[in-house]
């Protein structure tokens, strides 16, 4: 695109970040991360379908520190995208689009993400036998 050298909008060096824009870009970032992360899910399924040896290797990797870190990041991204996705579906009905509601639902999304992540990991680690 050879157009006039016009300034980028938003002007990133002087842009004052706010909750609304940060949550918006996070929705896209977590969506991309989740889609790339599905490779991990498919790899786990293919390993299981390949037989006990490759499944043990896959389970071993997921239980390793790197595997657990990937799973943790994936779970945070999933819960965030899920909560903020519900917020988007609610907006699609035409509701909650005034500024106070947008901020309130934004904080609710962050709280929901934190609560779901903590509950899931407590339950998951308990189920794993830790």
């Amino acid at each position, binding site marked *: *695109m050879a157009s006039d050298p016009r300034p980028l909008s938003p002007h990133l060096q002087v842009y004052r970040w706010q909750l609304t824009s940060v949550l918006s870009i996070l929705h*896209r970032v977590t*969506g*991309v991360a*989740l*889609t790339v992360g*599905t*490779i991990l*899910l*498919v790899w786990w*399924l*293919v390993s*299981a*379908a390949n*037989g*006990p040896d490759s*499944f*043990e290797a896959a*389970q071993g990797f997921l*239980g390793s520190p790197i595997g657990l870190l990937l799973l943790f990041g994936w*779970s945070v991204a*999933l819960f965030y995208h*899920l909560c903020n*996705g*519900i917020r*988007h*579906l609610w907006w*699609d009905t035409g509701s909650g689009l005034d500024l106070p509601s947008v901020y309130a639902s934004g904080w609710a999304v962050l709280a929901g993400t934190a609560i779901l992540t903590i509950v*899931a990991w407590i*339950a*998951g*680690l308990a*189920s*794993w*036998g830790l």
Partner: protein
Amino acid sequence: MRSSLRSPLGRAIGLGSAKEGVEHWWWQRISSIALVPLSLWFVISVIRLAGADLETVVNWLDNPVPAVLFVLLIAATFYHGALGLQVVIEDYVENESAKLAALIVMKLAAFLLAALGIFSVLKLAFVS
């Protein structure tokens, strides 16, 4: 004052929207609605299967309900993910050739991964 931008003649002879063009937006919403319960079910299943051996997983997928839900989860996830990545590529890749190439590679990769995942679930479901 007219409440519509469309002309009275256009309305009378039924011109205007072809009732198409919003498929991408619409199917992104449909797949997201499906993914709300499916992804919560998936998280609960992963928690219950934490550290499980293959026999436990096979016994779990022996039941039609988890096997079908897993197939639907994979289909909806890759469909929703491909729709989302399409918008990201369209937004950020300016060169038309590169954009087209990226879209083709992304869509084919989504099909490949979805097929691998669904086939693996079915193999685990039918093996026992």
